[in-house]
């Protein structure tokens, strides 16, 4: 146990947790907004990949990192709108549309990337963000360098959690989102535009998924690679359930997952040579499945999740 504790209170380990948690936090918050409005978005895996590609490409071509982030956010919001068009406006199966959006976005990401950059033996990379130490706070021992000497996108993720909670619980729009996710008919009677609110929530969710993708290709890897997302989107969907559709709990779930993931990375590196490293790679996924089994009995999904709204039908 003491070995584990020693590992935890290392700057490198804490920083790794934060770095792994950042894209997951964006993605999880994005999926949470969508689901709180009643729309499951299985397109998340593909949306993250396509946004990672457009963000990387925009930066690579323009030289501006923030232009890349903007491109990724817009891509995410656009693909969110596509998913909303099918599931909200047309009322089609959210499960199958989400898979369709993922297949389409992933295919498009690879297609466009190959078209723009061709086939290269060494994938092109970009010069990423510098870390941005926050004065005073970054001088705190251990915690400071790990948490407060990070990339600006990491700070954005930290700020996104309270902001998401504020928007969801303290603003009229957040109330509308929760209403259309719980009882769209009542929301409609109260004069809330169900279709419009759901569109907005799914698009906001998509934009956050876009940020997650941007972080992967522009900060974590500095390149767009095949299999860049590798299941992180699916994990985010599970984390929303684990976090009971709440911003704080979802972010906590993302941190917990990041802890397990960072731990397995450490265990891979720490000379447990007789165990194949794939066993560690599996660990976060198995952990997530088990966590869902434990949590799902108490988890209460938004009542109108998966249910399309048509005004004329009862």
């Amino acid at each position, binding site marked *: 146990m003491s070995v584990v504790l020693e590992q935890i209170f290392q700057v490198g380990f804490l920083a790794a947790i934060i770095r792994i948690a950042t894209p997951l936090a964006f993605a999880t918050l994005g999926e949470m907004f969508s689901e709180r409005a009643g729309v499951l978005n299985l397109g998340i895996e593909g949306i993250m990949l396509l946004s990672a590609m457009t963000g990387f490409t925009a930066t690579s071509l323009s030289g501006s990192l923030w232009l890349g982030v903007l491109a990724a956010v817009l891509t995410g919001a656009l693909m969110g709108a596509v998913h909303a068009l099918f599931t909200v406006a047309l009322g089609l199966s959210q499960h199958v549309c989400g898979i369709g959006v993922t*297949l389409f976005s992933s295919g498009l990401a690879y297609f466009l990337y190959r078209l723009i950059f061709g086939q290269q033996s060494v994938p092109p990379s970009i010069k990423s963000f510098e870390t941005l130490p926050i004065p005073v706070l970054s001088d705190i021992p251990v915690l400071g360098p790990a948490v407060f000497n990070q990339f600006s996108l990491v700070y954005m993720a930290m700020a996104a959690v309270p902001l998401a909670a504020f928007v969801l619980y303290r603003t009229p729009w957040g109330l509308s989102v929760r209403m259309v996710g719980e009882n769209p008919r009542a929301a409609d009677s109260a004069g809330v535009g169900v279709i419009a609110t759901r569109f907005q929530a799914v698009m906001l969710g998509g934009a956050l998924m876009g940020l997650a993708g941007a972080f992967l290709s522009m900060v974590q890897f500095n390149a767009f690679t095949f299999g860049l997302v590798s299941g992180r989107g699916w994990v985010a969907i599970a984390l929303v359930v684990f976090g009971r559709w709440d911003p704080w709990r979802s972010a906590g779930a993302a941190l917990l997952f990041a802890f397990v993931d960072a731990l397995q990375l450490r265990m891979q590196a720490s000379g447990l040579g007789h165990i194949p490293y794939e066993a560690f790679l599996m660990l976060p996924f198995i952990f997530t499945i088990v966590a869902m089994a434990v949590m799902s*009995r108490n988890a209460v999904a938004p009542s109108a999740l998966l249910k399309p709204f048509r005004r004329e039908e009862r």
Partner: protein
Amino acid sequence: MIRLEARTSTPGWFNLALPLLAIGATLVLCSGLIALAGAGIVEAYGVMFSASLGDSYAITETLVRATPMIFTGLAVAVAFRAKFWNIGAEGQLLAGAVASCAVGAIPMPGPLAMLLMALAGAAAGAAVALVPATLRVKFRVDDVVSSLLLNSVIFYALMALIEGPWKDSFSGYPISPPIEDSANFPVLLEGTRLHLGVVAAFLAAPVIWFLIARTTLGFRIRVVGENPEAARYGGIHVERVLISTALLSGALAGLAGVGEVGGVHFQVMSDISPGYGYSGIVVAMLARLNPLGVVPAALFLAAVMTGAEAMSRATGVPAFLSDVIQGTALLAMLVALLFTAYRVRRVGTAR
């Protein structure tokens, strides 16, 4: 005035017209990407067609390519009929491939080896599918998410095998040892790759159709999918039906892996499936979850995949176009399905 009104029934020709409509729309939409790549649209689709269906060898290649997607398409069709959202056909395929490869490496008479490979692969796929089904029935865990996450787990398990105990000690490549020569599925047509598994896939479709349409289990699967409350009221043990569906679905996906090992690759490697499990979802939806429709739908996707590689070589359009086509076809088919629920009717203002 035009308005939409609900339909109560759909004419039979819809089963053919809707997928064709969706495929037509898909090809039109995706032609934009061909133009973007600077190639001629007619030329690119022309190469795609002739390379996949243009001569008898091309047709056999397309049939070989369609085989795993017939199996995964059937797996998804069966599962979705019961509204068991099995997105895990990819992992079940990999499990089937690993199990059949392990059995195929044991020296024994050929026919026995093939039979045992099929049984082992089907059992492995079924065992994997049992996990999300059990989690859903016992713990109310969403089957979509658990079956998706399980795909990653199975993939890493496969990697652990081929980079560990199965690794080729001579070359160091992460590939499994080959199966026994006697276990290789017989080739049906000299000079092609058309193997026994192709026939098995084409026979499986009518068998599964019969099972769904004409047997008690098939009836229960359909009722559980359409109205679980009514099913329960009618004395059907819904949980048991879901478990049976999962076992059947997983076994079919596992057989997709068996065919790839026994008939195409004769060993297991990390890229043994270029996403055949996910393509199965597209196939099943194009087929409107009808097992007989799975065959032409799988042939279409196989032709696109086979043709895209040749198109890429000839015109420089990235072969990833086939992935975009798959995703677009799935979405287009969903939109086309709206015609089954609604009809457009012109409402006259005067008589």
